[in-house]
């Protein structure tokens, strides 16, 4: 009984994968296409290249908040500017201090 309790506690800590996620994971399909996961590519702390997002929620020179398909992506830093912005991808330059998923 004791061991069963422990097992349940472990399951609560780790969030179970959804059916779709399990299929994508098993078949090793691209997650960005099927799950709409955002791709964030960082080059040092000076450049961030982001794909798969819905739009900008907030933008100041210290914080950029983007709406992804599953979650929001926050980029904190200094002197942040958007090098270019299209429907597909965008590039943020500046001194990036933190990337946060909300």
């Amino acid at each position: 009984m004791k061991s069963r309790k422990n097992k349940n506690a472990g399951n609560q800590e780790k969030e179970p994968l959804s059916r779709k996620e399990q299929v994508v994971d098993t078949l090793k399909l691209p997650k960005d296409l099927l799950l709409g996961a955002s791709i964030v590519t960082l080059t040092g702390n000076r450049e961030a290249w982001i794909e798969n997002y819905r739009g900008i929620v907030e933008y100041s020179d210290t914080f950029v908040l983007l709406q992804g398909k599953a979650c929001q992506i926050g980029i904190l830093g200094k002197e942040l500017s958007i090098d270019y912005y299209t429907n597909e991808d965008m590039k943020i330059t500046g001194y990036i201090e933190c990337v946060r998923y909300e």
Partner: protein
Amino acid sequence: MEAFFHSLRGYVRIRVWGYSPERFINLCANRDILLWDIENHGAYYTMCISLAGFWQLRPITAKTKTRAAILQRYGLPFFLPRVKKRGIFLAGLAGCLLFLYLMSHYIWTIEIEGNTALTTDLLLTYLEENRIAQGTKKSALDIEALEKGIRRRFPIVTWTSARLEGTKLVIQIRENDRSAPQIEEAVKSGMDLEAERGGRIVRMVTRSGVPLVKIGDEVEAGQVLVSGAVPVYGEDAAVREYMFCQADADIYLEYPLRYTERIPTVCRYKTYSGDKKTVPYLQICGVELRMPFGKPDFERSDCVVSVKQAQVFGGLTLPFCYGSYCYREYSMSEKTYTKDQMLTLCEEKLAHVMETLEEKGVQILQKDVKIEKGSRYYVMEADFTVVEKTGKTVPGKIKDPPVREESKDTGSGSG
């Protein structure tokens, strides 16, 4: 490249402010309007937008309750109307471009690479004979015929390649170490290796041919060291015939070398006053244009000429050379060397000689240097013992096969 296309189509830098600038940016992206260099300035945003995109902004600004104002205009669509009024400038620009376009149809520089035995002047003269010179039309040039012509005219050239780089004709050639008659000679009677100078052989490795000397032998200049005629012996141990080849060997000679240098005790040298005069120089299509009034009236002067070929877009050479003549005034001064100065000078000269010898592949085994003071000269005598590679390829001395008497005997025996 992207910036060039933006400039070609025209773009504006705008300031956006109002209720929801972020939504304004999102809507622009959704309608495929490219925005770049987006910056936040607190109360307002600045960004670049293409001219075509700017005309589509009205519904977006209305929807997002923002306002957009142009800060700056960039690109060709804004530049052209401004210069439209300046007809002469436009005509000049068009004329310049036309001139460049027309000039790009001609050859303005000829570069020859890879020639050692054939001089560049010789090749240029050959090209001129074939009507290829500065100012020849590119379309009149038949590259294949030119390559073939060079190979035919100069048998020493084994490979040639000609190509056009903008207005530059580049000819690359590769020369054979031996000319065609020499190769024929090698096949007929072989090539011997002979000593270029006298000395004692200290090292020797023969790769082909018959060595006629051995390590420790004293040889004289012109003596055959390795023969290109390899004898084939018959059953009676007599030479039946010769097989000819090109003798090949590494032979090192040890010999004494004397170097003498007379250095005058009094040295005359130029003292520059610091006065300079620079005269501009221009050369158009080979004709030199120098300013008639520019030459200075210095009593003694030397001249440094610097010339540059006019080039545009990296490889497009134009038929202009420009530069300057720099006249520098000087006076002659005399100085008598002290003993220490003379010793330093001798050491420098000796070091230079040794460096030159080593560059030539000469190994110095021993050196003995004497410096004697004369009335007007210091005489430095350096006796070196050096080791140098030798072996000059010459046509073989054995040409005729030996007379075979045995054939007669065999004939009579059988008869």
